[in-house]
């Protein structure tokens, strides 16, 4: 049985959506419960900057992938090309 590689991409999207939700909760905590000052501002900027860095790097690699590649999961147990 083979599935499309894009299934894993959709799972990743679900993870990123949950991650974004929790990130917003974190930023909300900083904004709501701390004094608006240099530390809180810097922490949010560093977090958002780091997150954008990770997402950007991921996009760079993932944009080169052919997501229609079939993945054999049963019988072929993750069809491997070069291994």
């Amino acid at each position, binding site marked *: 049985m083979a599935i499309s590689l894009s299934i894993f991409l959709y799972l990743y999207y679900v993870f990123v959506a949950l991650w974004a939700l929790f990130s917003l909760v974190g930023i909300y905590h900083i904004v709501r419960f701390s*004094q608006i000052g240099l530390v809180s501002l810097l922490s949010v900027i560093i977090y958002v900057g780091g997150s954008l860095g990770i997402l950007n790097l991921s996009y760079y690699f993932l944009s080169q992938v052919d997501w229609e590649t079939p993945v054999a999961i049963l019988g072929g147990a993750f069809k*491997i090309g070069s291994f």
Partner: protein
Amino acid sequence: MLSIYRLPGIMPDEKIIKIVRQSFFVLFKKIVFFILLGMIFLAFLFLGVVNYPDLLNEPVYFPLIVLFGSSAYLFIWLFFFFIFIDYYLDVFVITSERIISIRQEGFFSRIIAEQKIERVQDITSEVKGVAQTIFKFGNIYVQTAAEQERLYFKDISNPEEIRDVIIKLAETKHRSYET
């Protein structure tokens, strides 16, 4: 929260005497842990690429590794952010009228406890172990006349100094009631 305008139930003439956080050493330990976690994962990736150079051209494994790596690093980064929030939003505010303990627990739980300065009966500071002695941090326990659980603040910087501040404030308050 750190502003007098955001203190819960602020009283007239109430002044903030001190705002205390956990020792930076506690945050530093957690930062080191997350850096190590990130580096271990990076080392595994590096070893994988060195031992299997074809991995980068693999049509199935390469995208899966990128997806997993990206998820792992986003997760580590988010957790690190919440560790910082936990550190930054856990405060012990000593005002001229009250002692307020504000604790952020997990993603959605926030606990605020307070005791009036004049009700303070006993205050204990505790410095235990090598790290606490060298980096000057420890615990504070505040027992009041009320039959409530005592206030407890963990791993704060200079606990002896904080204890002295609270004792002086309580004595001043008691004297003002006697006269």
